[in-house]
Structures are given as structure tokens and as C-alpha cells.
């Protein structure tokens, strides 16, 4: 159901008439709003989750650990997109942060994966993946 509405959405911009566009879109929007909440909890959310980022709680925990490690003040901007190097962390700090995250979440990060962690979001995504693997 969700995939068919996706396909029909792609076809609508091809039609030249503006009024037709509006009618088509409205019709499709109605179908979307009905179908996604009922089935989207399983199909839609599963499909979205693959590309979606980590949970906000995980990102918050990562941010608090980063703040504690780098001794940043509480109101400094640390978001998912902040790079560790931009926050004033050198490579030694990054290793310490990854150690802290390992202890906090009870996971074990590989050497190669740890070297590719550059932003808070990378760390949160890796944590989510490892926690899933551990519980699976």
C-alpha cells in the first residue's frame, strides 16, 4: 500500500495541467494520510528507520558524555551534526570519548569503526547498530 502511493506520487508532477496536479495531489494526500498511520507503524516506520538517524535519547546521552569529557559548559551547542574536532577535541579526546561511550552503553567498538567516528551523529548511529546487534 505504501509503495503504490509512492509510485503514484511520482507520476503526478508529469501531468501538465496545474488544476489536474492539485486534484491528483489532493487525492493522493488523502490516501497517504489514511494509509500511513494504519500500516506505517510497521511498514513505513521500518522502511524509514533504515535511513533514519539514531534515537534522540541516544544522541542526548552521547552529547552529555562529550560535554563531560571536553569540559564544555552546559549551554554550549552540541548537536548531532557537531564534529568532535570543531568542539575542540583532538584524536586522544576522541578515543577517550569512544571509551566512555563503550562503558556507558556496554558495547565494544572495533578499531576501524572507531577511526571513522567524526561527528556526534556517527557515534550515535554506531552505538544504535551495536546495541541492536548485541540484543539480537
Amino acid at each position, binding site marked *: 500500500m505504501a509503495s503504490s502511493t509512492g509510485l503514484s506520487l511520482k507520476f503526478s508532477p508529469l501531468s501538465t495541467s496545474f488544476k489536474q496536479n492539485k486534484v491528483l495531489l489532493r487525492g493522493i494526500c488523502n490516501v497517504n494520510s489514511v494509509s500511513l498511520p494504519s500500516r506505517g507503524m510497521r511498514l513505513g516506520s521500518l522502511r524509514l528507520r533504515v535511513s533514519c538517524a539514531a534515537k534522540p535519547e541516544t544522541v542526548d546521552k552521547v552529547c552529555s558524555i562529550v560535554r563531560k569529557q571536553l569540559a564544555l559548559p552546559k549551554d554550549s551547542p552540541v548537536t548531532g551534526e557537531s564534529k568532535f574536532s570543531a568542539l575542540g577535541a*583532538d*584524536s*586522544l579526546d576522541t*578515543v*577517550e570519548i*569512544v*571509551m566512555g561511550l563503550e*562503558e556507558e552503553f556496554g558495547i565494544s567498538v572495533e*578499531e576501524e569503526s*572507531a*577511526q571513522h567516528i567524526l561527528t556526534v551523529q556517527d557515534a550515535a548511529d554506531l552505538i544504535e547498530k551495536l546495541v541492536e546487534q548485541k540484543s539480537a
Partner: protein
Amino acid sequence: MAAAPTRIDVLQLYRSLMRVARQFCDYNIREYTKRRTIDAFRDNKILTNCSQLSAAFSDGKAQLEVAKRRALVYSLYAPKVKSIMDIKPS
């Protein structure tokens, strides 16, 4: 003398030392190992001389071996009473 250690080697040594530190049962030794590695690596961060770098790196590797042996032996004779710092407030 071996060639100068690469950045990746140094970071791997750092990570291994921190991991070994976690294996100690005694709170004091664990914290000391962590503190000592952090201090030593930060002090030597500014080294640029090749021979000094390799000397520091081999020193670190020797310390890692010592720490691994000690962690193993300490775990065989772990005290039953844990340090107060390890007990989380209930």
C-alpha cells in the same frame, strides 16, 4: 631503531592501554592506569623528533605488556570487598 610510529599506531596503543585499564579489579590501580596513560600521551603529543617518538612508543608498548600481565594476576587474587568508589549509590 624501528621506523617512527604512525598516528594510527599511537591511537591503537592508547586504546589498548585504556582497555587494559578497564580490566583491573582494583579501583585505585584502574584509575591510576587511566590517569597515567592520559598524562603520558598528552605530554608526548608535542614530540616531533623521530627517535624520541619511537622511544616513547616502545616504552608505551612495554608498559602495555606489563599492564596486561598485572591485570591477569590481579584478577586471580581479586579481593572480595570492593572499593567504596565502585559501589554505586543505591
